[in-house]
């Protein structure tokens, strides 16, 4: 693994991108996009996180093994969230939980 040195210019550039992202997030939050507010917020956060991982954390210049590790983390997090949510799609939690019969009554 020959060490790759990232130049400070790139670091400052990434910092600028992150700042722009933060500003956009805050601005977007004050507008009503309905259900898309959360999508936009998380979308920008993910873009920011990607830049941090790729450049600040040098993932872009790291061996494939590191990429695999990162993919694993995202993948397992996705498994946990997605598969748990399958259970909640049909049965909202608590007082709002529908009886099991509701399976048939969902709009198709």
């Amino acid at each position, binding site marked *: *693994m020959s*060490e790759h*040195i*990232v*130049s*400070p210019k790139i*670091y*400052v550039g*990434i*910092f600028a991108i*992150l*700042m722009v992202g*933060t500003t956009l*997030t*805050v601005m977007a*939050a*004050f*507008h*009503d*996009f309905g259900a898309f*507010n959360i999508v936009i*917020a*998380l979308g*920008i*956060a993910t873009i*920011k*996180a990607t830049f*941090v*991982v790729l*450049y*600040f*954390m*040098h993932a872009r210049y*790291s*061996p494939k*093994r*590191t990429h695999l*590790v*990162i993919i*694993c*983390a*995202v993948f*397992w*997090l996705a498994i*946990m*969230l997605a598969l*748990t*949510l399958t259970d*909640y799609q049909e049965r*909202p*939690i*608590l007082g*709002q939980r529908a009886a099991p019969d509701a399976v048939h009554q969902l709009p198709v």
Partner: protein
Amino acid sequence: MHRTGELYGQFQTLEQQKETAALGMWIFLVTEVLFFGGMFLTYTINRHAYPAAFGMGSNTLDIYLGGFNTVVLILSSLTMAMGVWSAQVGKKSLVTIFLILTLILGGTFLGVKVVEYKQKFDHHLIPGYHFDISYCAKSPTNCADLSPAARETEDKQLEEAERLDPDLNNHAQLYFSLYFGMTGLHALHMIVGAGLLLWLLKESVGGRFGPAYNTPVEIVGLYWHFVDIVWIYLFPLLYLIDRKAGR
């Protein structure tokens, strides 16, 4: 284990040692992702179930402090990255300077967090038996730090949220449990990170890190950036749930 210079006995080469350390930190970060992941899952399900309470709770947070902290933390990531760069190119005194800057920024973040926590404590928004989402509405004199305008909007929101969610207090408590859980865990990671920075600083003053050997700086850097990433998600998820009415 015997040790020759910077090389630990179990390794054959410095290169192998560095690779190993980096891989170890990356894998540790994977466990951290899943550690926070459990909380994110709890958050997702509860926010979906109780949107009014979560919006209401979120709006009591100070967006200026939150935004300021976001900038501070991202800036500290930059100085950390610059610290790594200085070590790689052999500017030993710059390493120390950047580490000190990072430490100061991290300390600023934690300081602001303390201010925020203190305010929530005064407003009876710490989950537990004394939690009361309508405390400020009931006894405005105890919440004198809020401007009358801010209090008025809060009262209005409270009224609306109570209309939408009859069990608002419990559900708002869930929001604050998650708020303190997630930011508390994040702050704990910051404190650990600050400890690691202090140790780096000590070594760096001794001139230990240069182009030949900078693994610890790099490894702590990875950790620090990860903590930054967690905050990048926490900020919108906790502070910006329901700001669209211009609150």
